[in-house]
């Protein structure tokens, strides 16, 4: 390979990447531009133009000093508690979901007995439990985190159970023949086998956690969080701020999902290659 072609390769790759990004975003940019034109022409107070929403977002959250990553005090006061609750809720859901799910997946009989109950639990619309937790736990972070866990645990639990159940029988036989300990089986066979399903569940749980985070913050008695800001702005008929909070939540969901996909891709390297790669 010549030096010139080696040097031009990253440049080519960067060019291709830019083309892909441009194509993917072209439609979105065009739609936002159209929205901008329509809302400006109409001048409706309920539908401020996107530029006004972006300006409000900037003013509210991202006009802080560079030393604080451009975050305003309002951003740290609202975003951080929200993200913290969501992280705590997801972590709790992940721990409980994987533990219970794997245990159930490895005991088919228990799973069969509990299946109707699990399907029922999963079918209850998650926000409906929040009022129950308000009564049981009073208002505050404990109630909010519990609400997130109660809704986000189901996809992880059911997927982990499914993943742990469908371990390749040849791998199970191999573990039996070589007398692997229960810990080794769990660590080297069952959990890795269930991992793709667990990630699929986690992606669903992530969006549920976002919904429940906002919902639980909208209840009276909450003093901070994005959900609080949303409901507060609505009560003041401050439409640009309401829209800014909605847009922020959308961006947050998108970023978190992208982050999770990145983690998933790293963690599952090899899983995909194996499925089709049994023949030389």
């Amino acid at each position: 390979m010549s030096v010139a072609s080696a040097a031009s390769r990253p440049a080519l790759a960067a060019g291709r990447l830019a083309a892909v990004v441009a194509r993917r975003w072209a439609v979105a940019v065009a739609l936002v531009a159209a929205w901008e034109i329509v809302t400006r022409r109409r001048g409706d107070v309920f539908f401020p133009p996107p530029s006004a929403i972006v300006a409000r977002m900037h003013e509210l959250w991202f006009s802080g000093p560079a030393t604080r990553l451009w975050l305003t005090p309002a951003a740290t006061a609202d975003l951080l508690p929200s993200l913290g609750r969501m992280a705590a809720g997801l972590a709790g859901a992940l721990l409980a979901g994987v533990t219970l799910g794997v245990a159930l997946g490895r005991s088919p009989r228990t799973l069969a007995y509990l299946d109707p109950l699990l399907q029922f639990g999963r079918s209850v619309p998650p926000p409906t439990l929040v009022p129950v937790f308000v009564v049981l736990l009073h208002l505050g972070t404990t109630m909010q985190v519990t609400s997130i866990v109660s809704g986000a645990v189901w996809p992880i639990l059911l997927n982990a159970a499914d993943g742990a159940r469908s371990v390749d029988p040849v791998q199970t036989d191999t573990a039996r023949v070589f007398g692997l300990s229960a810990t080794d089986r769990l660590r080297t066979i069952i959990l890795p086998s269930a991992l793709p399903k667990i990630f699929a569940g986690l992606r669903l749980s992530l969006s549920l956690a976002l919904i429940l985070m906002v919902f639980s913050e909208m209840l009276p008695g909450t003093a901070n969080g994005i959900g609080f800001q949303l409901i507060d702005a609505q009560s003041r008929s401050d439409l640009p701020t309401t829209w800014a909070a909605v847009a922020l939540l959308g961006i947050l969901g998108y970023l978190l999902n992208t982050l999770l996909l990145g983690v998933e891709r790293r963690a599952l390297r090899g899983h995909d290659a194996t499925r089709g790669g049994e023949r030389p």
Partner: protein
Amino acid sequence: MLQIDGLGHAYAGHPVLRDVDLTVRRGELVSIVGPSGCGKSTLLRCVAGLTAPARGTIRIDGRPVAGVPGGLAVVFQEYGRSLLPWLTVRDNVALPLRRRGGTRAQRRAAAASALDAVGLAAVAARRPWQLSGGMQQRVAIARALAFRPSLLLMDEPFGSVDAQTREDLEDLLLTVRGPEMTILFVTHDIDESVYVGDRVVVLNGSPAGVVADLPVTLPTRGEQIATREQAEFVRLRAEVGRQVRKA
């Protein structure tokens, strides 16, 4: 070493094996050959303790098999599924050794020497799916060797690799088998059964039983072409073939 008496098994009421008697001495390599689907794998699974036979007894060193016996290793045909894709080749080989105790360094050394024996020292840090099929099966063999089993069961181990690789693996097996290691080698390939076995046991019939038990006495061994052109090899192959095809 291994004694099987009156073994019988059925799947869902459909009899597969009937009255199988077989005695294997320590250090022997016995080929078990028969038509596809005749119950060879079932026999192996019963010996491995993975399937409980409906009738008969299996004894290893005089002790009846109930559950998976210690000191046993299996090389499955489905190498791609038997190796763990998320572990490196070295960790795959070292994993079963955890039960044997010893330090991590000792286990790694044992894995390294087994990989060296099958000629794969260079790929120890790779993942199984990055290797060719033949190499993956050599990893599975290394894993079994590192375990130092007293009984090694091989279920159509070279059934899904190409012909050249298959011959290489047959020779590898003959090189690495230790004098203390008893091996049951299940195959549907008549040539292969004669080439690797000290004895060829033919399973046939429905339900299947032992129809022939032939000692293999070849003047030279372990050289593909020279071995296969000996008169004795040709005679044995024909005899095994007749027994396998006999309906």
